[in-house]
């Protein structure tokens, strides 16, 4: 699928159906990053659905592994595996665990515990730099995840190593596990923090495909610096009763709620 808007719509619908069927959690964060994924997988990432392990592919690491429903849906719609397989999401003896799994075609790294993706991605970016290879490493982080100190170890090191092939994307939906980011542990000014650590930083509306495209198609933004895209997003984006509601970090839509949600996205 080449059209990012169409892909985003399909991914939202599929992700909603997946979490409903599996009675799974985390639909809010899956919907907040859907537009980012849609642009990444249609226009930015050099990946090949027919050869998921292609050596020269760009690496994509989902550090906020709990939001995997929209990544699995994206990969399925992009042809990495048949859509029907998503019916196994969260089911007994399924490879499709409800945190991202490297056993799924197109997935490079399993996460679930937060704060692991960026250090791992830094290592991959360092490997590419040392081997003089052109592929890039993209890491999708949540905002709440930035409470984890391991991220800041990597944020400190990456500019020192001049890893301009490393791109961190923060899905800044402003809500974490037990409340708003502002109440639990404020990040402001997140852009200033990354800049102080010597990253190149841009802030965009994480649901505006043109802005996402413009930002990610022009990395690295500054020579020898890693890039951090702070994408301001809405948790539960696209479903009115899910938007900005903490509850949808946990709840799974029942049949009636699913139909309501799907009707809003069609």
């Amino acid at each position: 699928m080449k059209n990012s808007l169409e892909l985003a719509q399909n991914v939202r619908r599929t992700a909603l159906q997946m979490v409903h069927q599996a009675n799974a959690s985390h639909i809010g964060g899956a919907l907040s990053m859907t537009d980012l994924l849609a642009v990444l997988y249609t226009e930015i990432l050099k990946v090949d659905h027919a050869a998921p392990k292609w050596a020269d592919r760009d690496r994509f690491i989902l550090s906020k592994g709990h939001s995997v429903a929209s990544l699995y849906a994206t990969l399925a719609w992009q042809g990495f595996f048949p859509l029907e397989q998503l019916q196994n999401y969260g089911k007994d003896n399924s490879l499709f665990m409800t945190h991202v799994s490297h056993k799924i075609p197109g997935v490079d790294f399993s996460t679930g515990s937060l704060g692991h993706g960026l250090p791992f991605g830094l290592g991959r970016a360092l490997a590419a730099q040392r081997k003089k290879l052109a592929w890039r490493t993209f890491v999708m982080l949540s905002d709440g995840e930035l409470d984890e100190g391991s991220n800041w170890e990597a944020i400190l090191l990456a500019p020192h190593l001049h890893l301009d092939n490393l791109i961190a994307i923060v899905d800044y939906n402003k809500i974490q596990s037990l409340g708003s980011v502002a109440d639990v542990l404020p990040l402001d000014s997140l852009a200033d923090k990354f800049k102080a650590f010597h990253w190149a930083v841009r802030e965009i509306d994480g649901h505006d495909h043109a802005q996402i495209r413009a930002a990610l198609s022009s990395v690295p933004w500054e020579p020898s610096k890693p890039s951090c895209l702070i994408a301001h997003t809405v948790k539960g984006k696209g479903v009115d009763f899910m938007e900005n509601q903490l509850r949808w970090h946990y709840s799974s839509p029942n049949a009636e709620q699913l139909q309501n949600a799907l009707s809003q996205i069609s």
Partner: protein
Amino acid sequence: MRTAFINELIVQARIHPEIFLVVADLGYSVVEPFAAEFPDRYLNAGIAEQNSTGLAAGLAAEGYHVFTYSIANFPTFRCAEQIRNDVAYHQLPVTVVSVGGGVSYGSLGYSHHAVQDYAALRTFPHMTIAAPGDPAEAKSCVDYLVKNPGPSYLRLGKAGEPNFHADALPGLTPGLFCPAIQETGKTARKIFLTTGATLGLALEAAKELGPEWSVRSLPLWSETVKEDIRKQIASLDTVVIVEEHLSAGGFASYVREAIGNDTALQGRIYSVALDARVCGLVGSQKFLRKEGGLTVDHLLQVTRNVSPK
């Protein structure tokens, strides 16, 4: 042992371009020759063990065999989840190297006493534990780990330990005891079984006891070779396990798990490990071993309690 380790790593790195060394700002007067010879395969990641281990996994995912190096508990407990999830679960070739196993860094205090490391790391999937007892074993462990890259933990003492094995030890195999130390009874059915830096201690005790006793060491072990352990125990009358680790969850616990519910074999096992009272005590390694019950006298006392066969 750390000298044997770095020398062997340098030798191996000349042959294996995939070897990469990541240090967390430790290794003064140890790692410099590696850094000088292989600058493209060396990184000081700063005092940041979680990131060091995570990025090591990332490097390993791209074809490197990464050795992470630090002291005591820093490369293990500080980043246990990175080892568990990023390295072991993904079956990536990362060897975590810790210098100062046991109570080697005695006077530096509890933070520097690595006495629970076997207990934690041996339970992670796909992990191989490498705990050499002398420089010869250290060299051979590195050779094995390079030839069999995977998630692994190399526990070293400090520097200056003597060689107890008279000969080099090519071809070490996980789960198989090393040949008996020459001075001890080669065919004895009563053995001290050691892993790590307790080899010398067991040797002293065995010399007191004469040819009925020998010393065997097991520097390489993992979950997958437990049946080999059981078979070797079954061919012996008495096995006194000696380890510089708390008794809870360590090497003797591992051997007992390997034997399972065979009560006859369980009855052949005796354990000498550190008593938990060493936690928080300060002093030299010798002092802490004594306080923890890891002495030649204690080993001899245990052998006197062995049931006659």
